[in-house]
C-alpha cells in the first residue's frame, strides 16, 4: 500500500456542521465529529447534550437538518438504518428494543435470517448465535426467549447483535449502563480486539473511569454544541468535567451530618422461592443503607417484593413496628414508601404521557379533592418545582417523556417519588445514565433527605457510589444476604469478596 500512514490520518468517517432541531429544541448546533481507523472515540456530555441524536443521525435513524456526512472522504446520504448498515455502520442503542417473545437467535438475526431455500434454517441460526454469544462472553442458550433474560443479559445480546453485522463503524450508546462489572470487562476486551481489526468505535458513557480505560480520543458536546476533541492521554478527569459542565465540581460525595434514629423498616426472613431467601435487615431513620452486589444478585427482586410488585412467599415486613401484611404498591405508598425503580422504561415511566403527567402520577391522590378532581394549579407548581430542583431539560411540561434524553427521563422518575415526600425511599440504581453534574446533585439530594430524617435504601452496582454514600452496606450474592459492613469497615475489596462469594472458605473475621 505504501501510504498506510496517510490512511490512518484520514478520517474513516466525518460529520460536518450538523444541525438538528426537534420541536422546541435545538438538539445539535453546527457540530463536527470525525472517526479515525482503529481508534475508540468517546463522546461525552451532559444529559440532553445531543450525543444520542448525533449517533442516530449517523446510523440513519434521524436526518440532519443541515450538514454533511462523509465516509472515506465521499459524501454519503444515510436515510434509513438499512442504508447505514450497508455502509458498514451499526449501533447499539441506549434504549433497548428487543422483541420479547422471540428467541435470542431470532433477535440476533432479525432481518438477516439464515435460510435454506425458502425455510428459515434454525439449526444454523442457533449455531451462529451461540458463536456470537460466546464471543461476547455470555453463556446463554440461543433458543431462550428474550423475556426470560435480565436487563443486563439483554444488553449483552444487543452488543452481540451489533457485532454480527461486522460493521466498520460501531456505535455504542451507553452500553455499560446496565451491565455488570464482569460483562464490562468482556466488553472492553471485545472493543480492544475490534480496534486491532482496524474498526472505528464510538463509545458513549457517563462513567469517567471507563473513558480513561478505553478511549483514545474524546469529543465533548455541551447543550448541542461541539466543544472539542482531545487525546485521552492529554486531558485529565477534572479538565474533562469542566469541559462538559462548564464549572468545577468540587466534591462528588457530599459531607453530611445525618442523625441515625429509630428503626422504621424491618424486614424479617423475607423470601421468594427460587429468587431470594432469608433476607433480614433493619433500616433506621436518617440512615442510608447501601445494597451492593453484582447485577442479578437479587437486590431489585427483594425491593420489588417489599414494595408489592411481586409477592414474597415467606417472611414479614414491619413499618414503624407495624406489620405490613400482604405488600401492594398502593399500600406501600400510603405507608410512606417510595421506590425509584431501576427499569425506567419498564415500570418507571409512561413514555407516551407528558413530563407533567408522569411527575405527578403517584401523587394524584394528594393533589386531588374528594370527587377526584385534580388541582391543576397546585400540581403544575410542584411539577415545575421539581423540574427546577433536578434541572430537568425539557422544552415544556407538556413534552412527551419519550422525547427527552435518557438521563432526563431518569430524573423524572426521581422527581415523581421525591414529590411524595415519603419516609422510606428506595433508590435502585438512581444515577444510571445520569451525567456527572447531575450525579453530584443527586448525591447531595440523597444526603439531604437523610439529614431530614428519611430512611434510605440505596442500591448501586457502582462501587465508589456505594462506598461514598452508605452508612451501612449489605452485600448480596445469589439471592442471599452475604455480608454486612459499616461505613468504617467497608472497602472495595471486602465488598467484592462478599459479592463474588470467594470467602466461602471462611476467610472473614
Amino acid at each position, binding site marked *: 500500500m505504501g501510504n498506510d500512514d496517510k490512511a490512518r490520518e484520514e478520517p474513516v468517517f466525518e460529520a460536518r456542521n450538523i444541525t438538528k432541531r426537534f*420541536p422546541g429544541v435545538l438538539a445539535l448546533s453546527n457540530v463536527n465529529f470525525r472517526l479515525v481507523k482503529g481508534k475508540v472515540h468517546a463522546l461525552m456530555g451532559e444529559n440532553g447534550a445531543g450525543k444520542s441524536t448525533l449517533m442516530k443521525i449517523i446510523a440513519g435513524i434521524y436526518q440532519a437538518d443541515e450538514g454533511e456526512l462523509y465516509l472515506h472522504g465521499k459524501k454519503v446520504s444515510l436515510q434509513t438504518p438499512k442504508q447505514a448498515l450497508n455502509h458498514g455502520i451499526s449501533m447499539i442503542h441506549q434504549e433497548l428494543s428487543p422483541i420479547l417473545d422471540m428467541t435470542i437467535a431470532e433477535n440476533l438475526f432479525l432481518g438477516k435470517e439464515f435460510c435454506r431455500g425458502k425455510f428459515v434454517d434454525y439449526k444454523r441460526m442457533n449455531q451462529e448465535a451461540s458463536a456470537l454469544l460466546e464471543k461476547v462472553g455470555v453463556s446463554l442458550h440461543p433458543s431462550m426467549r428474550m423475556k426470560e433474560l435480565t436487563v443486563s443479559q439483554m444488553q449483552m445480546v444487543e452488543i452481540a447483535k451489533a457485532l454480527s453485522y461486522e460493521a466498520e463503524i460501531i456505535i455504542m450508546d451507553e452500553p455499560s449502563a446496565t451491565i455488570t462489572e464482569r460483562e464490562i470487562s468482556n466488553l472492553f476486551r471485545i472493543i480492544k480486539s475490534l480496534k486491532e481489526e482496524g474498526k472505528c468505535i464510538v463509545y458513549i458513557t457517563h462513567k469517567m473511569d471507563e473513558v480513561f480505560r478505553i478511549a483514545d480520543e474524546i469529543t465533548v458536546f455541551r447543550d448541542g454544541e461541539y466543544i472539542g476533541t482531545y487525546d485521552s492521554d492529554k486531558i485529565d478527569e477534572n479538565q474533562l468535567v469542566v469541559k462538559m459542565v462548564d464549572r468545577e465540581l468540587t466534591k462528588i460525595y457530599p459531607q453530611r451530618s445525618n442523625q441515625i434514629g429509630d428503626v422504621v423498616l424491618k424486614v424479617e426472613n423475607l423470601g421468594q422461592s427460587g429468587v431470594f431467601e432469608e433476607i433480614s435487615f433493619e433500616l433506621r431513620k436518617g440512615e442510608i443503607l447501601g445494597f451492593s452486589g453484582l447485577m442479578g444478585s437479587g437486590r431489585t427482586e427483594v425491593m420489588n417484593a417489599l414494595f408489592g410488585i411481586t409477592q414474597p412467599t415467606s417472611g414479614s415486613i414491619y413499618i414503624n413496628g407495624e406489620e405490613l401484611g400482604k405488600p401492594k*404498591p398502593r399500600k406501600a405508598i400510603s405507608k410512606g414508601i417510595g421506590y425509584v425503580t431501576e427499569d425506567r422504561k419498564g415500570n418507571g415511566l*409512561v413514555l*407516551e404521557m407528558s413530563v407533567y403527567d408522569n411527575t405527578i*402520577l403517584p401523587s394524584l391522590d394528594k393533589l386531588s379533592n374528594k370527587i*377526584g378532581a*385534580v388541582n391543576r394549579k397546585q400540581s403544575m407548581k410542584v411539577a415545575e418545582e421539581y423540574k427546577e430542583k433536578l434541572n430537568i431539560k425539557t*422544552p415544556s411540561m407538556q413534552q412527551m417523556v419519550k422525547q427527552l434524553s435518557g438521563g432526563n427521563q431518569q430524573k423524572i422518575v426521581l422527581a415523581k417519588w421525591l414529590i411524595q415526600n415519603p419516609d422510606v425511599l428506595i433508590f435502585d440504581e438512581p444515577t444510571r445514565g445520569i451525567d456527572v453534574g447531575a450525579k453530584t446533585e443527586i448525591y447531595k439530594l440523597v444526603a439531604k433527605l437523610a439529614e431530614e430524617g428519611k430512611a434510605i435504601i440505596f442500591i448501586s452496582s457502582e462501587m465508589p457510589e456505594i462506598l461514598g454514600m452508605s452508612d451501612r452496606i449489605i452485600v448480596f450474592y445469589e439471592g442471599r444476604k452475604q455480608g454486612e459492613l459499616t461505613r468504617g469497615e467497608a472497602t472495595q475489596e471486602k465488598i467484592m469478596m462478599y459479592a463474588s462469594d470467594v470467602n466461602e472458605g471462611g476467610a472473614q473475621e
Partner: protein
Amino acid sequence: MKEKMKGFDRKWIQTYMLIFIVIGLGIILSFISRNFLTTTNLLNVLRQISINGILAIGMTIVCLTGGIDLSVGSIVAFSGIIAAGFLRDKEYPIVLVLLIAILAGGLLGLYNGYFVAYRNAAPFVVTLSMMTIARGMTYVYSNGRPISNLPTNFLAIGKGSIAGIPVPTIILILVFVLASIMLTKLKFGRYVYAVGGNENAAMVSGINVKWIKMMVYVLSGIACGIAAIILTARVSAGLPTAGESYELDAIAATVIGGTSLSGGRGRLWGTIVGAILLGIVNNGLDLLNVSSFYQQIVKGLIILGAILIDSKRNE
C-alpha cells in the same frame, strides 16, 4: 414561548385537520345536493349520530386502556329490550325505567370488566363472548319478538326536541361534557391514560390498575344503556335485533378520531368529530341516492385513510 406554541400546534393540527375535512366535505355536499345544507337535514344528521357518538365515547375510554368492547351492540339491544319490557308490562315511572336500562348496561359492562381486569382474560375474547350472551339474553327476554306500544312521553326522548335541538343530541352533548371532564380533570382520567400507556408504571405508581381496567367497561356499558334508551324511543319499540354491528361504528369513530387501539393515546374530542364525519358521509351518500352497499365501501376507505393520517403523525 413561541417555541412552546410550535410543539403544541403540531399536536393539535391533526384534530383540526379532521375538522377541516368535515367542513370541506360539508361544503362539497352542499354544492352537490340542495337538501344537505338545510336545518332539517343537519339536525337530522345530529340526531342520527347521537347513538353512535355516545357508544364511541364509551369505546374510546375502553380503548385508552388498551382494551376493546365488542359487546356494545348486543348490550344496547339488551338494555333496550329491558326498558321496553318494563315500560309495556308494568307500570313503572319512566325515570325508574331509564335507570334500570342504564343499570342493565352497566352490569353487563361490569361482567366484561371483571373478567378482563381480575381474571386476566383478553378483552377481545371476553367482550366477544358477551356479544353473543347479551344477544341471546335479549332473545330469551323478548321471545324473539319486538316489544312495542310504549308510552308517548318516553318516545319523546328519541323523537323530541328542546329549543329546536333534538333530545338525543342534547344527551350526547351531556355525555360528552361529563366524559371529557372525567378524562381531563379527574385523576381517574389520568389513570386511564397511564394504565393504557404503561400498565407496570401505573401499578408501581400506586394506581389500582385492575379497578381502572374494570371501570372502563362499566362506563362503556352505561353508555350502551343510555344509547339503548334513545334507540328504543326512536324506533318506538324494543327490537331484539337492535344494535347489530354498532360496535364497529363505535370503533370506527374512535379510530378516525385518533385514538390508538393499543392504548394510552387519544382524545374524546376526536372521537366526536369522527362520529360526525361518519354521519355526514352516510347522510351525503343517502342524499345522493348511493346504495348502502357502496356506503359500506366508502366507510371502510375512510377508516383506512384515518389510520394512515394517524400513523404519519406518530412518525
